[in-house]
Structure formats: structure tokens, C-alpha cells
């Protein structure tokens, strides 16, 4: 019987020839990741296991990104905890701020994740690396502690839902963010509960690796365990210059068994907006233009990559941020920051009247660098619009692509680049 990418990667890491959805397997991990929020708790749990060494000092990545540069004393302590642990265990992949950025932008960029990998991260958006053809999934801190100790973990092999995206969007501003928001709107926030999503079709082939990462990133917003895209020439082109290890490409067999196959024609798709308070609460932008906003955020592990900043800059070039709006642009990593400087994007943003921040998660999870007051509304390229996600419980977050967030910043309300005169 044929297997899906998810089944093949899990089988290979469990030392089995074949697995099928529903099987429970113990599998070896290629990489284990945590950050300044989940890391300290993982370390606390690791220390209770009663072993004094991590399984492999080259396969653990600890990144301060959520509340870093430290936003307060308690956050500073959490950053310090992961630094001290990294030093004690001589971890190869600990990075101080100024040399890193948001974990899910940083790991692929540095070639720390490669196609065919099995990765766990104590962060739900670890599913981002599915865009490279790796099986990567979010876990909690305790699972991560066990991963750091043993280099393996148990998995229930997930069923896969296959999405075939056909056509070429007529609207040139439509991209990966709109595809994934549309899909989540269609299947709901638990539409892929416990399952893997697999994205295929000509619209996916046409996306850049950055655009694909935006899609895989938000698989978790449909409850999925992974968001997989088979590696192709674009992936290899991306990986070649970066990878620190050999990689392996897995593709689903033609006779693989899927829980469901969903076909979507993107030809007439409009840019999508997710209204408060669920990512599934989507509407096309043309039905959202009545929404006035106070803040626009462009960044995060969903849309903080160079392509995202280029698109936002293209929309904002020569324009001014609406007088009553705050706009905050956050590059995903130091490398993206530097690229944005070199390409003149930073100048465009600053001249437009936007704040250009160092790489951090910041406002995405209501940490700092742009928290909303009671009653305020933000358009944001991030991934969650839950109650209180970006600040006060009575504030609101509308999710969109960078093109829409940039256009809305100029308009002072939700709108399209076409409306920005």
C-alpha cells in the first residue's frame, strides 16, 4: 500500500519499512527546538529526569525570540536560563540576539532544518518546516525535555488531508497567506485536528519557498500536526546554499491513502481577512473595507520574511502611513533585517512613517513592541486573532497578508493595494 510523506518520514525515523495512519511509533529526532518561553520549563523538567547529558549537543536549538530583547526582569531571567543551559551542555545551536531572530524564520534560513527531517519544537508553529518537506511538529515543554534527553519521542501517525490548489490567481496580491486563510475558513480551526495537511497543485508549485512557509506555518491554526509540501527544485535551490547536513526528499505515493482530498481553484480568490476572534472567521477583503484600524503589524514567523517585506514596501513606497495609525514592521531575522537595509526597504518604511523593529515575536503574542489598548483594532500579518492575543481582552486583531496590512496602514482602514492611490 502506498504511503504519504508524513507516513514515510515517520516510518524512516522509527526504523520501520511501513507505517499507517493510527499507528503509534517511537521515532528518532533530527532536531529539537525551544525558545525563551518554553525552554526554561523544558529545562526544569529535563533536570528532573536524572541524567546529566543531552542526547546530542548538535541537535538542540535554543532561541531567545519571544520576549527578547528581554522586555522585563522575569523575561531576562528566562533568556538567561536557556543561555546557561546551552553553555553548560555546550550546545552548538544557541544564538544570542543580534545573531538570530524568530525561530521559524531563522532555522530554515540557516539550513538547520532540511527536507526529510523529523523535528519537534516546543512551539506550535514548528510546523513551518513542512514547507521544506520535513515532518515538524509542535510539542509542549515536557515532551521537549524527553526529546532533549533521549533524542526520540512517540508519535501517532496522522491521517493526511490533501489540498490540491489549481489555477493562477487573477489578483496579483493574492498569495500563500490568502490560500491558507481561505483553507482554514473552509475547514475550521479543528478541520485538520490530529491530522497532517499536504499542499499540492500548480498554485503551490508557483509559490516561492517563503510563500510556502507562510502556508505550512498556519497548519496548526486548522489543528493540524504538520503542513507538508513535497520538496521540489525551488526547495533544493533554497536548501543547497544553506544546508549543514545531507537531506532526503520524500513524496507521497500515487496510491497513498488520504482521509480527504480537497480541491480549490484559486483563480478568482480575493485577499482574505480573518476577523476576530478565530483564524477561521474569514472574509474577502472587499467585504472588510468598513473596518477602521489603529495599528498595522507586518512581521512574525508567518510573514516576516524578505518576500513579505518586499511586498509591503512595494505598497508603501512613496506613501504615508495614515495620520491616526501606528505601523510596526518587524523583520524575521538579522539576515532579513540586513537584506531590508541593503534593498532600501527600511528607508521606504521609515519615510512612510512606520516603526522598524529588531527581529522579535513582540506584539504577535501580546508580548511587547505594540500592545493594543482596550477597544483598539489591529490588522496584522501574524497567525492568531484570539481574544486578547495582542493586548487588552477587548482589543481586536484582523489577520491578513503583508500587501493588505501595508495598504490598510496607508488607508487607515482595511483595504487593498489597489485603493492606495
Amino acid at each position: 500500500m502506498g504511503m504519504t510523506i508524513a507516513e514515510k518520514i515517520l516510518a524512516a525515523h522509527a526504523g520501520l519499512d511501513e507505517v499507517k495512519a493510527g499507528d503509534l511509533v517511537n521515532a528518532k529526532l533530527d532536531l529539537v527546538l525551544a525558545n525563551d518561553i518554553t525552554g526554561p520549563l523544558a529545562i526544569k523538567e529535563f533536570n528532573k529526569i536524572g541524567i546529566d547529558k543531552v542526547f546530542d549537543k548538535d541537535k538542540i536549538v535554543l532561541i531567545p525570540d519571544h520576549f527578547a530583547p528581554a522586555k522585563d526582569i522575569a523575561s531576562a531571567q528566562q533568556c538567561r536560563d536557556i543561555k546557561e543551559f546551552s553553555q553548560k551542555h555546550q550546545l552548538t545551536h544557541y544564538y544570542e540576539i543580534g545573531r538570530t531572530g524568530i525561530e521559524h524564520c531563522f532555522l530554515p534560513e540557516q539550513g538547520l532544518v532540511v527536507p526529510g527531517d523529523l523535528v519537534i519544537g516546543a512551539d506550535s508553529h514548528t510546523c513551518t518546516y513542512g514547507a521544506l518537506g520535513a515532518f515538524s511538529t509542535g510539542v509542549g515543554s515536557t515532551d521537549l525535555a524527553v526529546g532533549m534527553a533521549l533524542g526520540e519521542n512517540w508519535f501517532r501517525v496522522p491521517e493526511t488531508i490533501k489540498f490540491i490548489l489549481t489555477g493562477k490567481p487573477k489578483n496579483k496580491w493574492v498569495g500563500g497567506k490568502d490560500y491558507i486563510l481561505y483553507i482554514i475558513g473552509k475547514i475550521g480551526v479543528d478541520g485538520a485536528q490530529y491530522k497532517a495537511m499536504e499542499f499540492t497543485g500548480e498554485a503551490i508549485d508557483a509559490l516561492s519557498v517563503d510563500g510556502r512557509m507562510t502556508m505550512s506555518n498556519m497548519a496548526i491554526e486548522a489543528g493540524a500536526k504538520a503542513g507538508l509540501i513535497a520538496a521540489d527544485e525551488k526547495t533544493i535551490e533554497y536548501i543547497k546554499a544553506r544546508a549543514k547536513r545531507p537531506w532526503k526528499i520524500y513524496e507521497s505515493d500515487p496510491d497513498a491513502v488520504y482521509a480527504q482530498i480537497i480541491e480549490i481553484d484559486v483563480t478568482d480568490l480575493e485577499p482574505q481577512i480573518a476577523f476576530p476572534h478565530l483564524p477561521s472567521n474569514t472574509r474577502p477583503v472587499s467585504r472588510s473595507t468598513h473596518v477602521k484600524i489603529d495599528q498595522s503589524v507586518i512581521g512574525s514567523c508567518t510573514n516576516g520574511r524578505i518576500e513579505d517585506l518586499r511586498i509591503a514596501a512595494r505598497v508603501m513606497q512613496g506613501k504615508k502611513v495614515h495620520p491616526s495609525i501606528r505601523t510596526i514592521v518587524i523583520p524575521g531575522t538579522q539576515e532579513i533585517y540586513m537584506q531590508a537595509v541593503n534593498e532600501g526597504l527600511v528607508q521606504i518604511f521609515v519615510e512612510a512613517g512606520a516603526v522598524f523593529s529588531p527581529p522579535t515575536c513582540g506584539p504577535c503574542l501580546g508580548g511587547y513592541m505594540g500592545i493594543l489598548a482596550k477597544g483598539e483594532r489591529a490588522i496584522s500579518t501574524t497567525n492568531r486573532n484570539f481574544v486578547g492575543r495582542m493586548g487588552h481582552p477587548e482589543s481586536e486583531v484582523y489577520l491578513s497578508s503583508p500587501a493588505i496590512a501595508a495598504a490598510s496602514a496607508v488607508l487607515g482602514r482595511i483595504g487593498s493595494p489597489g485603493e492606495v492611490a
Partner: protein
Amino acid sequence: MEKLKGKAWKVGNDIDTDVIIPARYLNTSDGDFLAAHCLEDLIPNVKEKITPGDILVAGKNFGCGSSREHAPIAIKYAGFSCVLAESYARIFYRNAINIGLPIIVAPEACREAIEGDVLEVDPTTGVIHNLAQSRSYQGEPFPPFMLEILESGGVIPFTAKKLKGKA
């Protein structure tokens, strides 16, 4: 495992981890501190309102969102003995088992329970008695290895025990 008994506290569908414990409190992993802010935008001061042992009863997709283990920890330290829900988000489910908080899938029991009903839950079998309504339900039982994790008090003591056995 011992049977659990407590009053039902009901919450709705898609209760996400930002509602269970807002990110503004994630600059620590201290259980008592997290418990003080558990579900605060939904049931303010929940820790003071409930009696230790009470049971959180939820709708679909409970615990969706982030991977923060601070969420089940907050629930556990607030004093809830277990969670019943129509369904769970995957990472939350794993996290709860891993920290030794029994959580059971029991759609019918959750839909029919009324706030304040006294429930008795047997985590070993998944059987739930609603004493207020004199009704019984079969929740989804745990696979044996998960039960073993819960009986050990979580995956850390479970792993420690396993490693000792090997040594």
C-alpha cells in the same frame, strides 16, 4: 488510578491557550502564579471560586492555539482534578497527559452536564457518572502506555523510571 469527584465548571468551544493563560503571564512558569491567572478573561479568580478537585467541562477543540504547557499547568494548579471535553487540540492533549493531568474525551457527558453538577470520573476506564442527573457515560479510555504515564504522575517520572530500569 483513583476516582475523581468534583463539581462541573462549564466552558464553550474552541477555548484557546491564550484564554487559558494569556501570554502576558508567560514570563514565568511558576504553577501558583499561572493558576492565579487561569482563564481570567473568562472566569475571573477561578482559583478562589472552585473547590480543589472540581472538574472543567468543555466543548470542542479545547486548548487550541499555542504549545504552551503553562496552560495545563495553570489548570492543574488552579485545583481542577481533570478536564472533560468534546474534543481537544492535539498539543494540549499531549501536554496534559505529560504533566499528569487526566483529560478525557467525552462528548455526550460534556454536552449534557450542567454547571454545578457533581461528576465522578474514573480515569482508568473513562467512565463518568453525573451524580446530579444519575447518568453514566463512557468516555474514551486511554491507550495503555498513556495510562502508565498518568499513573507515574507524568512523562518525566515515567521516563526517569524507564531509564533506571535500563541502567
